[in-house]
C-alpha cells in the first residue's frame, strides 16, 4: 500500500494521474503530513532533473508556471474541497517571499574600504554623491531599475558558485574544516 502511494505521489509530480486517482491522492495528501513532506521531496527531485536547464531558462520556466497558474483560476475553482488551492497558495506564497527577500550583498566601495558594509538599495543607487569610480557602473544600474534585483541575483549566483570552487580547491580551506562554508551560509544575512 505504502509503495503504491509513493508511486502515486511520484505520478502526481509528473502529472500522470487520471482523474479518479488524482482526487484519491489529493484526499490522502490533505490529511497526511508525511505524504506532504514526500510530495515536497519529489518535487525537489523533479526540480533537480530540470536543473540541467540553463539557469535563465529554468527561471523562465518558473515564471511561466506561475503565469499559467494565475491565468487558469477556473480550473482550480471547481475543486474547492481539494487541497490544490491551498498548495497553490503555498507555492505562490513561497515565491513571493523569495522575491520580496531581494538580497543585497555587502558592498564595499573601493574608495572607502572601511569596515562598514553598504546595502545597495534603489534609494542609495539614486544618490548623486557616489564616488566617481563607481558612478558609471551605478548609473548603468540606475538607468534600468528593474534589473537591480536580477543583476544582484545573477551576481550572488556567480559568487556562490565561485566561492564553492574557491573552497573546494584551496588546501588552506581544507585545514579549517567548515569555516569556509560558514561564509556561504552566512552570506544570506548580510543584507
Amino acid at each position: 500500500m505504502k509503495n503504491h502511494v509513493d508511486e502515486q505521489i511520484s505520478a502526481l509530480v509528473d502529472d500522470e494521474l487520471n482523474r479518479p486517482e488524482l482526487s484519491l491522492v489529493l484526499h490522502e495528501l490533505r490529511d497526511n503530513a508525511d505524504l506532504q513532506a514526500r510530495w515536497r521531496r519529489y518535487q525537489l527531485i523533479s526540480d533537480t532533473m530540470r536543473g540541467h536547464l540553463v539557469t535563465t531558462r529554468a527561471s523562465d520556466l518558473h515564471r511561466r508556471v506561475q503565469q499559467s497558474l494565475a491565468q487558469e483560476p477556473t480550473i482550480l475553482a471547481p475543486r474547492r474541497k481539494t487541497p490544490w488551492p491551498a498548495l497553490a497558495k503555498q507555492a505562490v506564497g513561497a515565491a513571493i517571499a523569495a522575491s520580496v527577500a531581494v538580497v543585497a550583498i555587502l558592498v564595499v566601495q573601493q574608495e572607502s574600504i572601511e569596515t562598514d558594509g553598504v546595502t545597495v538599495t534603489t534609494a542609495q543607487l539614486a544618490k548623486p554623491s557616489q564616488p566617481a569610480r563607481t558612478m558609471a557602473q551605478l548609473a548603468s544600474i540606475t538607468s534600468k531599475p528593474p534589473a537591480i534585483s536580477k543583476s544582484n541575483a545573477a551576481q550572488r549566483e556567480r559568487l556562490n558558485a565561485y566561492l564553492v570552487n574557491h573552497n573546494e580547491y584551496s588546501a588552506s580551506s581544507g585545514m579549517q574544516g567548515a569555516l569556509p562554508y560558514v561564509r556561504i551560509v552566512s552570506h544570506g544575512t548580510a543584507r
Partner: protein
Amino acid sequence: MRPGIFSSHGLLLALFLSQIAWAEDVSGFEDISNPQQWLERMSEAAHQLNYDGTFVYFHDGHMQAMRIVHSNNDGVERERLLSLSGPVREVLRDSERVICILPDDNAVVEENAGPSRRRPLNLPARLETLLQYYDISDADMDRVAGHNAHKILITPKDDQRYGHAFWLHQQKGLLLRSELYNEEGRVVEQLMFTGLKFYEQVPEELLAAETHGRDVIWQRGAPKMAVQGTKNWWVSQLPAGFVLENHRRHVMSGNIQVEHLLFSDGLASVSVFIEPMSAQQQDLVDSLRLGAVNTYRRHYLDHVITVMGEVPSRTAQRIGEAVQRIE
C-alpha cells in the same frame, strides 16, 4: 652473540616505547609544544572527527547561529552545515559533491568536490613556508563550549594578509573558536562553538538535509567539470609568498567556461576566475565582501576577472590588476 641479543631486545624495547608514545599521541596532545604541530592537528581533526556542534558566527555586525554535523566513516567524509538563525540555508558535502541549498537566494548551488576534501599531503612543508610570512605563537589556555582549548596566534609580518587566532580542542585538536584580524588588527570575523558532542559514529538522520528546495533554481556545474584546453591567463606579479597551487578550466552553470587560478601563501588563499563577458555581467558591482572573503572584479579584453580570497581587499585588487593573457 650476546650483544646481538641485547641489541635486538633494545630494538624491541624501542619499538614498544614508541608504540606507547604513539598511543599517548592519539589520546591526548598535552605534550605538544610546537604551535605548528597544533596546526597540523587542527587540519587532521577537521577531516577525521565525528561530531555535532552548534556555534555562533559574527561578521560585519551580523551574528548568526549555525549547526554543523561532520562524520568520517572509514575515510568517507560527510558534512552538513545549517543556519539556525535568519534565513534557512544549508550546505551538504560528501566526497563527490557540495550542495548549497539557499532558499532565500532562490537557488541551490551544486558543484563537484575538489582536492581540498583530501588532506594536504605536504602540510609540514606548507607550514614551513607559512613561517616566512607569519609569526606563530602559543597563547593562554582557554575554555570554549565547556572544553579546554589551546590558543594559537598567527600574526602576519606584512599587510598583505590577515592574522588569525585559533582555539583548538585540547585533546582532539578541533577548531573551536577562531578570530580573523584585518590589516589594521581589527577583528573582522569570529566563530565560536557553544555546544559540541563527539560521536564514534554519527547517526544517519543527523546528516540528512532538512531544507526543502521547493521553488528554487538548481544551479549545477556541468557533470564533466574539467575542460581540456590551453590555459590562457596568468598573473604577472604576486604579493610576496603567494604561489600558484592550482590552474584549471572548468564549466560552470549556464555552460560558461571559466579559467580558475588558485594562489596560496600556505594559509590564506586567493582564487582568480576569468570568464568571457556576458550581457548580464556588465552591471555587476566591482568589489564585495563576504565575511572575511574580499572580492575584486574588473573587465579586461572582453573578459570578466573576479578575484576572491580571505585576504585584504588591497591584496585581492593587486592580484586582479596583474592578470594578463598568455600571448
